[in-house]
């Protein structure tokens, strides 16, 4: 039967041959050599995601009053988020932002990630996630400071418990794990929510962070916004996995798949994961299926790498429209409610526009102020050099 040469049978069959199928031998198990136990046994079943993304919109589920309020709040924030994205993009055209990576189409993920957290929790955003930070309560001007270019991080991360927007992809994930682990060691029931893109999951840091989190049972929720692209590279060139959520089992944590444009569904899945993490259940990997409606940034030309029809198909699954339609169908949203949401968004946009039109105050001396706790002798010399230059320039004027 057994032969050293490659078997003639088609591979799939051969691969499927398993110990369990070796029925004639099962009887003799007692005498068959078996390795000593080498690992605690974990059932992989509950760690595997469902094949279809979890959805709530369009279901007949009745909403209790709290849920109604939640859905309405989600809606108001989605409307605000959409407007924010538009306004920020407009600011790039006016030269007020160096660049803007829009989350248009991904607002449900951004808003739900922020809302799933308690005040004491931490958010670890990626460079595209300024809206999540804003939805967590950060002043949009502060959120956009990095992209305006007056400083790298425009806010105090400790004040808002929002880590700096991370430009090097996936590098923020181990930070989230370390912070959550530290909080747990100190007895604080703080949860960290770490955001990353589909492209970012290919980085080694993604792997190392998830592995550390699972081994340490750190209270972290990893939210992958799978928006179909890493700049121009489509998902199929990024991974061959059945889903990104399937990576979770390889770390020993649950993987969940959710419709990222279904705001109540994203909120529920994330809230459950946060709850689980807070109660000692360890980390969860959530993959939200969504789409980057705009180009990568205002500087990108998306027509070079994707057909317009694909974008149109996703426009039909717009997170703002979906929730608005559902709320109206359920008679939870009136024209007036919708107008109020739009007005609030408009007000935010106007305020943002006005404040971004002012030139930021710049202090060249700041270049040397925060390199170390105190300046080294070398930096003191260099600061003096710059100061002398600036004085000379002023004198010349």
């Amino acid at each position: 039967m057994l032969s050293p040469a490659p078997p003639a049978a088609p591979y799939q069959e051969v691969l499927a041959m398993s110990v369990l199928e070796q029925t004639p031998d099962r009887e003799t198990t007692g005498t068959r050599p078996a390795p000593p136990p080498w690992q605690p046994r974990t059932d992989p079943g509950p760690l595997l995601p469902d094949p279809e993304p979890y959805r709530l919109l369009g279901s007949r589920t009745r909403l209790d009053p709290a849920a109604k309020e939640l859905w309405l709040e989600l809606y108001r924030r989605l409307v605000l988020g959409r407007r924010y994205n538009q306004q920020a993009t407009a600011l790039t055209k006016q030269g007020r932002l160096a660049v803007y990576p829009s989350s248009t189409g991904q607002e449900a993920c951004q808003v739900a990630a922020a809302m799933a957290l308690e005040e004491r929790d931490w958010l670890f955003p990626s460079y595209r996630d300024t809206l999540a930070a804003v939805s967590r309560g950060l002043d949009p001007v502060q959120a956009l400071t990095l992209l305006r270019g007056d400083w790298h991080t425009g806010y105090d991360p400790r004040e808002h418990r929002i880590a700096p927007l991370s430009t090097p992809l996936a590098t923020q994930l181990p930070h989230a794990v370390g912070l959550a682990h530290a909080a747990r060691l100190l007895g604080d029931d703080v949860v960290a929510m770490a955001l990353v893109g589909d492209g970012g999951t290919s980085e080694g840091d993604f792997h190392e962070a998830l592995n550390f989190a699972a081994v340490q049972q750190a209270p972290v929720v990893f939210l992958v916004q799978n928006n179909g692209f890493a700049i121009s590279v489509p998902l199929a060139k990024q991974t061959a996995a059945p889903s990104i959520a399937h990576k979770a089992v390889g770390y020993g944590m649950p993987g969940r798949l959710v419709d990222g444009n279904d705001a109540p569904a994203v909120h529920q899945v994330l809230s459950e994961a946060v709850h689980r993490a807070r109660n000692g259940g360890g980390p969860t990997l959530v993959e939200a299926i969504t789409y980057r409606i705009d180009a990568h940034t205002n500087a990108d030309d998306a027509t070079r790498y994707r057909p317009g029809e694909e974008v149109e198909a996703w426009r039909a699954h717009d997170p703002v429209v979906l929730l608005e339609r559902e709320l109206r169908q359920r008679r939870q949203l009136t024209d007036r409610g919708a107008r109020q949401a739009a007005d609030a968004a408009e007000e935010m946009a106007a305020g943002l526009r006005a404040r971004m039109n002012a030139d930021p105050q710049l202090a060249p001396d700041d270049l040397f102020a925060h390199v170390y706790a105190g300046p080294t002798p070398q930096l003191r010399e260099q600061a003096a050099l710059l100061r002398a230059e600036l004085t000379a320039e002023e004198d010349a004027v």
Partner: protein
Amino acid sequence: MTTVTAGRAAGTTTSAAAPGTTGADAAPGPGRPAAKPATMAQALNRALRDAMAEDPAVHVMGEDVGALGGVFRITDGLAAEFGEDRCADTPLAEAGILGTAVGMAMYGLRPVVEMQFDAFAYPAFEQLISHVSRMRNRTRGALPMPITLRIPYGGGIGGVEHHSDSSEAYYMATPGLHVVTPATVGDAYGLLRQSIASDDPVVFLEPKRLYWAKDAVDLEAPPHSEPFGRAVVRRPGTSATLITYGPSLPVCLEAAEAAREDGLDLEVIDLRTLVPFDDETVCAAVRRTGRAVVVHEATGFAGPGAEIAARLTERCFHHLHAPVLRVAGFDIPYPPPMLEKHHLPGVDRILDAVDRLQWESEWTA
């Protein structure tokens, strides 16, 4: 690897570049008809295309290099012309990109790897240091690593954090790597071709703020380029020598022009390859002028200028009238866009340093 006499290298000079051009190696000289101007980005693109057409072993790979043609469009059209296997979009993982390139080189291919920005090459650091730079040595030459690692580097483009690093010091300090950086359109073509043809790994640093700078270079008949390993005197001069490379060349040429008003005749040397270093050309120049300033964007402390100043002093000590000075980026993380102008070595800072060459050093209290 060959260095030539300083005389010959010094002969390859041109007038200073007008603002907006990178320098001058392709100014229409006698016997060469004026060519349509080309950008450095176009020259790099053309070099890749010609290398791929000439040698089927040349494979281009990286993030977004396929359909998009790279975020700077340096690989534009290559996937369409040579197929997606020859110009391949990879998953987003820099260590994986360089690591698989190592394996491809082991099988005889000649990978040209694009890193999207300077700071995004850091995840590939271990593969670069522990393998790319050492594989030939480890195997006594059995496994050479003909890999070209293209990295857009430097600031001045208003990029947000991590998009403006000058990381050449890391690569210079790594034996086994060549470190190359063009400053002119002609060299962008010539040095990239030579780097791809090299049987050793080359870190090819592209000064991203010069991508759109133009020179009158005919890409249909690219000019002969000085060999690898040779520095070129871009502007002859007698008062002092400015030693620079990449993005700082146009700034130095501008400074040299400005210095004329003060009656100073500054020489400007473009190093072109930081490793190997052209001691011959540079020392000959400095022995002639007796004064030198090294100019670069990278931070000063333990930066490229340290090596240049140290070796010049070792080799030309008794010809120096003043210490070799350095004008470099400050020893700080690269600043945000709105403050970068204060960080980058500009004409005034260079001229201030030149001023300090004329007198007893102010440091010798």
